[in-house]
């Protein structure tokens, strides 16, 4: 074969192109969160070291905003605490059953809220009891789901990711549907599969339903901004989210107690069918 011939060079170029494109597309196709986490684990560990330090500098300049957010959350929690205290006083609750959910406070050390595939890294890991599939929330938003866990950190697939869905309902009604990010704006989401009979109106509050085992019920996430009928069967509703997920700093990782027992029960029940 003449290695200087035009056809050989063309063949080499096209061959190289096809090989590189196939590699690229395979990488894109296999870019599941867990695989990516495993491949980049070593790189991430180094990056986390630098992120923590650079985040520290940015945090310093954002302290005023964080303080204000914490004060507001604190005031709301005090209000809720007073309500609980009031109820306890009157009902003399002696129930020793632990709460339905385990709450692990965490802070965000790295967030990437500006793309179509967004994620966060939190400063809590396996040694703090974090496991995959735990939900991550704040007092007025759902943040995402833990996708992978290392000893000291966890990797959260953000709700701002088109593959993510959460079960949500309209406050004051029994109408529930699927809440998904619309992919265009970090403040907006879509609540789909709401029955046509729903009487919900623009301005009504949307909160988590608790029907999945990932997010606790009754966390308000936003208000309905518009309503559209879809194919004569369902309504889709635009939702303005309460929390700008780009400005988050502190979150809670939640796990339903007895999760293993619920999973086991579901598994046994499915075997009966």
């Amino acid at each position: 074969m003449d290695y200087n011939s035009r056809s050989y060079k063309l063949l080499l170029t096209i061959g190289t192109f096809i090989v590189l494109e196939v590699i690229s597309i395979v990488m894109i196709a296999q870019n599941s969160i867990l695989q990516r986490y495993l491949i980049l684990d070593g790189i991430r560990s180094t990056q986390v070291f630098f992120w923590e330090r650079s985040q520290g500098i940015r945090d310093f300049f954002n302290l005023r905003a964080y303080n204000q957010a914490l004060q507001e959350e604190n005031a709301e929690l005090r209000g809720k605490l007073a309500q609980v205290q009031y109820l306890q006083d009157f009902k003399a609750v002696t129930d020793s059953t632990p709460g339905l959910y385990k709450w692990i406070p965490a802070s965000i050390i790295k967030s990437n809220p500006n793309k179509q595939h967004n994620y966060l890294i939190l400063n809590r890991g396996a040694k703090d009891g974090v496991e995959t599939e735990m939900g991550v929330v704040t007092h007025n938003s759902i943040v995402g789901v833990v996708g992978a866990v290392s000893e000291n950190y966890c990797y959260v697939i953000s709700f701002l990711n088109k593959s993510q869905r959460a079960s949500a309902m309209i406050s004051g009604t029994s109408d529930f549907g699927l809440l998904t990010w619309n992919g265009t704006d970090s403040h907006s989401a879509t609540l789909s599969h709401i029955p046509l009979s729903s009487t919900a109106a623009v301005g009504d509050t949307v909160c988590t339903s608790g029907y999945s085992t990932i997010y606790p019920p009754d966390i308000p996430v936003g208000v309905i901004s518009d309503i559209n009928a879809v194919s004569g069967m369902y309504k889709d509703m635009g939702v303005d989210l309460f929390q700008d997920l780009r400005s988050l700093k502190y979150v809670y990782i939640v796990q339903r107690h007895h999760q293993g027992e619920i999973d086991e029960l579901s598994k046994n029940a499915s075997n009966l069918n």
Partner: protein
Amino acid sequence: MPTYLRQIIIYAVVILLQVIINNYVNLGPMIYICLIPLLIIYLPLDQKPYLSLIIAFGLGLIIDILSDGVLGLNAGAATLIALVYRPLFYPVFQKNNYSKKYIPPIRESGIWRHVLYMLIILAIYFLFYIIFDGLAKSTLLTSLVRYLMNIAVNLAIATIVDLTLFNRS
């Protein structure tokens, strides 16, 4: 300073700039600022084509890794434009009397030829990028709007960087 050394320094600066933009500049989820196409059109024109492809793939992969992108997304798009930047050069710049080693400087060819060349390159780049980034997840209209917005924003930024870094007299 030797040309190749200047070229390497400029490439390093642009890669650093790209990583800083990806990690610290927030223009919302619809806009992705990408300087890789600019680096690829400044690859030597007389270089072996398969080498250009490999360099472009490597540059894309570096950006994917350093800026937490979807692995392969920039690499695939960059490889595609490395294939077409040379065949597109002659129809756009028309004359053959330019130096055949690199794309001619703006003072020789005029800014509009650079802008036209960059526009075509960006259109090809974002065609790949947006198809694979939003595969089966976004509506056609959303993808189209995103496509046009990205071409417009990136054309403006690429022209500024082109004038600032690559065409300093």
